[in-house]
């Protein structure tokens, strides 16, 4: 397991949820993958060197916690359930899985591949033909009795809110998508004068264990939120059988501690296998001790890149370079990184990434950066892994689904939460707090508001710029580079068009609409990251943001096929009156007449009736057929022509047919 960090290689990245004393293998598409107890399919695959999810638009696509193929369990592990998400599926010895959309090779081919020493590096899914929608249903089952509070996100803010609510006697459900609590607090390190993140996590975890009225769900994703309803997705394993479990939790109050995710810088090759976000790479190493590749380039515009460099070095990994887009950044972690002897460059931005034919996996082209991505010069760096930090994007998907406002802050080029919906509270870093104390307090304050308790406002002073520089503004995009696509998000499949429209030419009406619809994600639902990226790169105007968030940021649910009953003809009663569209068509008081056709048969409603067989001008029609069966035909005929035994001509599509009026006092 060469991609695992050593167990004693620094406390932070030692793999806190795996049990290294219990190693085994499982089968993924027929290939043996080594794992430890506590691994998920995703973490084991990444640790085994499977860095690719498959291919899309002719390029390999990275496997990561935001984007992975869906699985089905095979053989005795198959409980016949829906697709399993790799990141939420724990593994055990001898389990068998297949990736949906991956080519299934024969046993002979797999044996030959093993004998030839071929290394599996990708799940091999063709994302051009494999649909990847939400795992849960659009029509969840009804919820049980509502709980008092659902807290979504188990970072420090979510834990603090849960503990305070639990202590106050509320029934609380805490939902955390990862296998452990604590969030990303440990990545950022401690601030002077604040409570230490690790101590806070340990203390809060202990309290949570002691509270009987708190239910903690780990490896559980809150996939959708509606007013008073939270839908969760998790993978249940019972008697070695896997079941995808969509659960519906009713709640009186929702506290969103959903945190922030890695923002993806938009350049070509930004999701090639080996490219990973900073928080994702930290989580993979911290929880599972996994760090694929030997040489790592860390690039971005936040102070966390230096801390990441330090802890990775502590864990024995080689950091090729730390490239900061800022020209004169200040951070204590930068000073520490220098002391570690790490190679640091400032004012440097990644322009593109290509696959390398040499021993290293990636060829990263960097250049000088200033302002928004104008560049001069450039160098190429070969590495196995590129860890990117383009700053943080608050996770506001559930917030928006619950009716919360999302706004664009142009001065910081970020999306942020606006007005809150009823009974919904946004806390922690998703609400804009950075330090442990503020996150802690924001969690407690939300519960205080629910319990109508007077709470002091959460105050957080930004760190002085001369000691800790702010994160760089997100770059717009880098248009040049390799043949590989420039994706707009870590989780979606929308890409930047090869030739960006000239935004200076956009004016009234919708040239940008046309450009976007033809080249970017016109036919897909968008995730929040993609929407944010569209604004950031200038393809979407701020004025249009609200509309796109409202219309296009939806779960891409499948439209279920209709049941036979749904397809049945509507059984609405026929009106007892002549329809309004026939009023005044044939005079003020036309008569309902029975016709006798010269050859008895069904005549279509709507056939026009003429006085003679050569009539064809619709304005000269004297009536029309209302309904008919094989025995009788009902017609509406102008009074002047409605006489018994009068001969008329009925114009059918393929010719006229003779008929005569048998009665003039019929009923509709």
């Amino acid at each position, binding site marked *: 397991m060469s991609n695992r960090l050593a167990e004693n290689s620094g406390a932070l990245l030692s793999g806190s949820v795996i049990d290294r004393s219990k190693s085994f293998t499982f089968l993924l598409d027929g290939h043996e993958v080594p794992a430890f107890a506590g691994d998920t399919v995703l973490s084991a695959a990444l640790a085994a060197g499977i860095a690719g999810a498959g291919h899309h638009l002719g390029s390999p696509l990275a496997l990561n916690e935001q984007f992975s193929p869906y699985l089905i369990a095979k053989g005795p592990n198959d409980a016949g359930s829906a697709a399993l998400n790799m990141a939420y599926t724990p593994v055990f010895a001898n389990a068998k899985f297949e990736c949906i959309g991956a080519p299934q090779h024969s046993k002979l081919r797999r044996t030959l591949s093993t004998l030839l020493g071929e290394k599996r590096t990708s799940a091999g899914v063709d994302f051009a033909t494999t*649909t990847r*929608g939400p795992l849960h249903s659009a029509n969840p089952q009804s919820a049980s009795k509502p709980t008092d509070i659902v807290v979504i996100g188990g970072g420090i803010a979510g834990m603090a809110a849960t503990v305070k609510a639990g202590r106050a006697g509320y029934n609380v459900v805490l939902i955390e998508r990862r296998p452990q609590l604590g969030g990303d607090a440990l990545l950022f390190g401690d601030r002077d004068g604040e409570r230490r993140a690790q101590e806070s996590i340990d203390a809060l975890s202990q309290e949570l264990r002691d509270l009987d009225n708190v239910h903690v769900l780990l490896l559980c994703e809150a996939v959708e939120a509606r007013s008073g309803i939270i839908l969760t997705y998790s993978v249940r394993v019972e008697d070695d059988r896997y079941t995808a479990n969509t659960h519906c939790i009713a709640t009186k109050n929702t506290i969103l501690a959903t945190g922030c995710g890695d923002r993806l810088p938009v350049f070509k090759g930004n999701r090639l296998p080996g490219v990973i976000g900073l928080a994702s790479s930290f989580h993979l190493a911290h929880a599972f001790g996994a760090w694929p590749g030997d040489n790592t380039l860390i690039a971005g515009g936040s102070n966390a890149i230096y801390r990441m460099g330090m802890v990775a070095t502590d864990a024995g990994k080689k950091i090729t370079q730390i490239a900061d887009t800022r020209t004169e950044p200040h951070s204590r972690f930068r000073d520490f990184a220098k002391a570690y002897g790490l190679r640091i460059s400032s004012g440097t931005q990644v322009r593109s990434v290509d696959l390398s034919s040499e021993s290293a996996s990636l060829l990263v082209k960097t250049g000088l950066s200033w302002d928004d991505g104008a560049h001069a010069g450039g160098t190429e760096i070969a590495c196995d892994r590129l860890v990117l930090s383009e700053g943080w994007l608050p996770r506001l998907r559930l917030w928006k689904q619950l009716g919360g406002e999302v706004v664009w802050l142009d001065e910081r080029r970020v999306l942020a939460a606006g007005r809150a919906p009823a009974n919904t509270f946004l806390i922690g870093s998703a609400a804009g707090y950075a330090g442990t104390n503020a996150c802690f307090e924001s969690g407690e304050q939300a519960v205080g508001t629910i319990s109508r308790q007077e709470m002091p406002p959460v105050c957080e002073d930004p760190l002085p710029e001369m000691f800790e520089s702010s994160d760089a503004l997100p770059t717009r995009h880098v248009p040049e580079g390799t043949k590989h696509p420039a994706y707009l998000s870590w989780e979606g499949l929308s890409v930047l068009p090869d030739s960006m429209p000239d935004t200076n030419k956009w*004016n009234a*009406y*919708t*040239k940008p*609409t*046309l450009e*976007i*619809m033809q080249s970017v994600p*016109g*036919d897909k*639902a968008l995730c929040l990251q993609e929407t944010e990226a569209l604004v950031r790169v200038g*393809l*979407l*105007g701020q*004025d249009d943001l609200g*509309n*796109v968030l*409202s*219309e*296009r940021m*939806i*779960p*891409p*649910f*499948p*439209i*279920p*096929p*209709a049941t*036979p009953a*749904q*397809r*049945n*003809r*509507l059984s*609405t009663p*026929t*009106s007892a009156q002549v*329809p*309004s*569209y*026939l*009023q*005044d*068509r044939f005079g003020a008081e036309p008569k309902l007449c029975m016709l006798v056709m010269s050859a008895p048969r069904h005549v*279509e*409603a*709507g056939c*026009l009736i003429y006085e003679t067989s050569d009539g*064809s*001008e*619709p*304005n000269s*029609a004297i009536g*029309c*057929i209302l309904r008919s069966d094989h025995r009788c035909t009902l017609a509406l005929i102008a009074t002047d022509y409605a006489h018994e035994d009068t001969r008329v001509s009925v*114009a059918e*599509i393929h010719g006229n047919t003779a008929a005569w009026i048998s009665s003039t006092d019929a009923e509709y």
Partner: protein
Amino acid sequence: MPESSFDFAIFGSSPFAALLAIALATVHRRKVCLVARQPAALQLARSLDVSVAAWTRPHNWALMQRTRGELESLLGKHASTVLTRTEVALIARSPSGVDALGHARHMAAAFGQLTARLAIHPEQDAIEGFSVEGAMRLRHRPFYALLTDWLEELAIPVFSPDQTTTSIKRNGVVLSAEALHVIAEAAILTDARSATEFLLPSTTEKLWQASPYTSVLTEPGNALRLSVAIDVDATAQTLMHPDGRIESIVRGNRDIAARYLTYLLPAHANARYAGIAEFSKLESVDGAPVIGQIGSSRLHVALALEPVAAFLAPAIARHFAGECSPDDAAYFLAHAPQAGRSAVAEFTANSFGQRQ
């Protein structure tokens, strides 16, 4: 006339409003301005423009027959880009709706249209109707893409309704904003927003009503083998793209739209939602267009024209320019807001109490 004066200020952001402005400016040499909001990027369609509808009355088919080819002439060099030939399916699944379509089909045939009966999901005999061959459709995206330059070329200014204050005064319709003060002899209201803003409910409630609508876009999938479907029961317009994307504009909220797509699409459609938008539209109470002057005011309306609005724009421009033929004049007299209107009513789902 001062430079800031116009004959008409046309309110509305639809292709119809723009085409009406263009027809008045070019064919009838009127000075017009447009009060319109540019569609937001990635915005879902609010309407569909085709050259046929489920008309049961001869005067509608006759008007379209007289107007045939006029939109193409108006579009000129742009016609090949924005107009496309299509087959339109007119469908229903209620007995009343199917009956109405029978009348519409025979009227279409009487006016020389090639029609064919069709059944969707015939195994359940659930949806019936007929198709009209050789109809035309206005493609909205390419139309909007060329509109900016075209309006500039014709010196038709576009004012944003969000940044313009409009007041109806004795001497005209006054549009004012920062560094802007223009006056128009008359206003033509073509959308729900302006009609609601400028007209009293007591004037309009017997003529039209605002109804909720939902627009749905799906990802590419296995769609129906139809290009355009107009459902008279659901009051829905559906456009199927060659790649399987579906745009559907359905009367009702999103739940109703979802149910509609569920029964419209075949079991193997494998469609997924790519976008949903809810909005409101004005519908005439009797299902017929409302075109003309409101009393003796400076306000005119051209409402409830879907799905043929764009194709009627040249004829309606003639009407507002006062250059109609006698046949056209009779049509517009019957469809005026103050007309009796019993002789123009068309099939409406709500007149039979039908709801999906």
